[in-house]
């Protein structure tokens, strides 16, 4: 155990937390190898389909003259579209979560040791061993720990001391994408 580090924090989620966490989740997804591979496949298949259509209509000369500008343009569109969607969804989440009366915040306790980390609140309890996480990511606001591609748990950095952040980074360093 890291010397003198208290391995427990308490916090409650703030309205902005949800969309910030969602934004980070998107960024982790958009830079993941599987997502890049999917984009590459979509791009390649689209180019083959479009090239085939052009060939049927006009022959090879048309295929080359069109694809030489359309292929990079489509790649840029494919890459940028998820970022635009991310910006829109984050904005929409922010609007929804901050609109209307806010429910009483639930206090969440996060505690960890060498083997596992747990989240406790009045809504329930979850305890996960470090080796059972499939990936992790962080930005200036959050550490996200993923139990699967879709399910992640949140630790806000604002409640962590520098020593606690180092401790969590050390313990989560072994998490490798599966």
């Amino acid at each position, binding site marked *: 155990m890291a010397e003198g580090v208290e391995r427990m924090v308490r916090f409650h989620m703030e309205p902005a937390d949800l969309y910030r966490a969602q934004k980070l989740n998107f960024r982790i997804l958009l830079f993941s190898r599987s997502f890049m591979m999917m984009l590459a496949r979509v791009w390649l298949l689209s180019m083959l389909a479009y090239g085939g259509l052009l060939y049927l*209509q*006009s022959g090879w000369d048309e295929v080359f003259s069109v694809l030489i500008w359309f292929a990079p343009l489509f790649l840029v569109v494919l890459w940028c579209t998820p970022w635009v969607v991310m910006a829109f969804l984050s904005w929409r989440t922010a609007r929804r979560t901050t609109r209307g009366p806010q429910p009483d915040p639930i206090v969440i306790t996060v505690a960890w040791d060498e083997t596992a980390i747990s989240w406790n609140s009045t809504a*329930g309890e*979850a*305890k996960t061993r470090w080796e059972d996480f499939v990936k992790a990511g962080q930005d200036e606001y959050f550490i996200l720990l993923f139990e699967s*591609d879709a399910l992640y748990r949140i630790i806000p950095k604002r409640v962590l001391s520098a020593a606690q952040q180092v401790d969590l980074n050390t313990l989560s360093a072994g998490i490798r994408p599966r």
Partner: protein
Amino acid sequence: MSRDEPMNDSDDRRVTYHLDADLLKQAYLLHFRMNIFRPHTLFKLVVVWCVGVFAYAAILYAIGGRWDVLKLTLWFAPVLAAVLLLMPWLVNILLSGYSARKTFRIQKSLHPAITVSWDEAAINWVSASGTAHLPWENIHECGENARVLLIFETPRLFRMVPRHLLTPAQLGDIHAHLARHGIKLATFG
């Protein structure tokens, strides 16, 4: 006990099960069916269709050459509509099994036995990985098919109840609680 008779014994309001990839697949299929028929999903498909047809026509026009833009666009529009309508079904039917197997393999918290219990105030899930306590009034919506009952905390986060393991009385009891709290229940198949 009849289906409509209220249950009082806490033992009757409890079921223990092991989740498996097939049940997870049923949950994914149900989640998909609940979403695909929503008005805003259909609206999104229409928007994508309009943008796609417009982009296609614009590209053909920009390329010039010997394209008959109107003729090709009129051919492309129904093809794109059919693709947009069929693609989500195809992707879901073909990939839900793979996705469920992958999630079940990597998400270890799904492996231990899970006990679902409920009372007048809330429904609870307990396993070696943790617990969840969900008051009835905090449920967003529900959906069910022959195998699984999905209880949504938010539009994206759902918890499962293995419907096929519930007795008619237990299922009736849960339905009665949902109805009492005005929670929407979508039933498929």
